[in-house]
């Protein structure tokens, strides 16, 4: 038993260091000869995996933070408090890793501050840049109490408490803007993005699907934490999140198909080709949990609930990659398959997220919130 556990942990440690080594190699390649050596990006296909997955999915997967913060602080549903801090930690880590990915993807990362002083309010990217900066700051402040409680910063803690509510409201608004603006980015390419994904509703659809994946991630991370730390799973809470997830997913899919029908593009769903296939995959991964999670029997079983949340997460990732990659290929007249170094860097970033989450949860009061 203990040898098995030992082997298991050394296996994951080895995987972790291999991923980190490959990621460092990829990052070195990116910073020394340039983006062209580390990626398969071209003039015709300037955004790849790092934007499509690391940034677009990273921001979405962090949505559990603002969902839970709003639930507990605005809607005053205090029973959700036990899973609030893990959700904030996930969101904060997510945003930090998104910034890491941006520093890799930007051609001139040392100029990232330019967006602070050289304004162009007509650019969605300008809105995105400000949302990233401001919301990361908000998340840092929302996460700070866990650190201050541990290391005894009574005065700053008191200050933070007094601004909690305005901070929470600003955070929820920034999240709303940020999640939707990632969809707005693609409003400018009606001639390049496939009609299965291009719609004037992109901002709204991105916001709704981010809400879905925020809930799914909260279920996902609670399940993993309970296994890793031998903690009791908050089944009634997750049951509630699961029910809300079913409702949100159904609303999202209803809007998605109504929009396709109204734009008279519904027939493309069965048009043979890679796009329709990937659309089917995305829809199935979001649709199955939408149906299953309406069944109380499924929601009561942690493993089934976890499976549904995981499917929804995969469906969300499929949707973002379809917008950023699948849907853009035909319109750009090119094909994009990420270079292995792009994948290596991405995996290393995910590994870094797990590696920081574990000690943070272990050493900081994340699962044992002090009463306020």
């Amino acid at each position, binding site marked *: 038993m203990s040898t098995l556990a030992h082997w298991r942990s050394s296996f994951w440690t080895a995987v972790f260091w291999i991923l980190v080594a490959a990621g460092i190699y990829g990052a070195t390649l990116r*910073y*020394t*000869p*340039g*983006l*062209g*050596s580390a990626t398969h*990006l*071209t*003039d*015709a296909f*300037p*955004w790849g995996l790092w934007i499509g997955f690391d940034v677009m999915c990273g921001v979405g997967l962090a949505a559990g933070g603002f969902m839970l913060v709003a639930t507990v*602080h*605005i*809607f*005053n549903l*205090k*029973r959700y*408090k*036990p899973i609030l801090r893990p959700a904030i930690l996930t969101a904060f880590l997510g945003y930090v890793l998104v910034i890491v990915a941006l520093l890799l993807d*930007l*051609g*001139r*990362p040392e*100029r*990232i501050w*330019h*967006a602070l002083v*050289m*304004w*162009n*309010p*007509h*650019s*969605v*990217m*300008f*809105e*995105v*840049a400000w949302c990233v900066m401001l919301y990361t700051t908000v998340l840092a402040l929302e996460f700070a109490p866990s650190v201050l409680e541990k290391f005894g910063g009574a005065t700053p803690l008191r200050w933070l408490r007094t601004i909690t*509510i305005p901070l*929470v*409201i600003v955070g*929820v*608004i920034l999240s*709303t*803007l940020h999640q*939707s*603006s990632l969809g*707005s*980015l693609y*409003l*400018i*390419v*009606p*001639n390049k993005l496939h009609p299965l994904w291009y719609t*004037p509703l992109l*901002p709204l659809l991105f916001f709704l699907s981010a809400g879905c994946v925020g809930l799914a991630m909260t279920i996902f991370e609670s399940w993993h934490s309970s296994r890793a730390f031998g903690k009791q799973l908050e089944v009634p809470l997750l049951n509630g999140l699961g029910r809300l997830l079913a409702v949100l997913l159904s609303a999202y899919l209803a809007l998605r198909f109504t929009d396709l029908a109204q734009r008279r593009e519904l027939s493309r769903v069965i048009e043979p080709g890679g796009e329709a296939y990937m659309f089917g995959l995305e829809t199935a991964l979001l649709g199955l949990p939408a149906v299953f999670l309406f069944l109380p029997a499924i929601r009561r079983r942690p493993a089934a609930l976890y499976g549904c949340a995981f499917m929804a997460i995969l469906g969300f990732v499929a949707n973002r990659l379809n917008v950023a990659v699948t849907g853009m290929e035909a319109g750009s007249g090119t094909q994009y398959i990420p270079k292995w170094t792009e994948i290596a860097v991405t995996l290393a970033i995910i590994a870094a997220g797990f590696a920081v989450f574990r000690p943070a949860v272990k050493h900081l009061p994340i699962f044992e919130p002090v*009463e306020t």
Partner: protein
Amino acid sequence: MSKAMLFDSTLCIGCRACESACAEKWGLPYNDRIGAEERISAHKLTAIKTHGERFSRRLCMHCAEPTCVSVCPVGAFRKTADGPVVYDAEKCIGCRYCLLACPFSVPSYEWSSRQPRVRKCDFCEERQEAGRPTACSEACPTQATISGERTALLAEAKRRMAEKPAAYYPRIYGLKEAGGTSVFFLSAVPFEQLDLNTQLPDEPLPGLTWRALSQVPNIASAGAVLLGGVYWITHRREEVRKHEGGGKERLS
């Protein structure tokens, strides 16, 4: 007055003098191998494309309402009063949204540089300002490419079409595409046969994102009121419950 360019595919002989003049102006290398590359790139800011016996040209279209100007987060692109769309490499952070967004797929990136820039034709801004033609139109031996005042060039295009109606497809490419451009194409055949994008909307693209962006202040203010309101209601309820004494607080 606004500057423009007219490219008449029926007169182009594919000599590529425009390409080499452009390379010389930018200090870029030019030889037969680069000449054979029939697409624009970071080291080739204009290109002749062969379509059987016909030729077409690629270069920045210098849109009336440029998409690149609207999408750049740091305002590295600017449309000058004269018409050229120019780029300031010192501002650029390298997000490459301009490459993604340009309806004509014009901007190129220096993918193998450690300090990469976006490259694209600048319509020979400094030459045009001094009243001279662009380097490419000066080099063109057949008047296939000419540059000058927009109104005069459009009149010239119409004159050529009226003089030899059989030689021309009866439309000018660039008048309406994505809200209109400063580079106009004439051709003997429909423009899609020159691989030009004829599916572009007539409206300028920046309006598409502005419709969403202009909602930001509304969402922010409505959101603040809504969230503040919900907070007040839910916490007021709790207070009332406390005061009435009967309520059991359900603090976890």
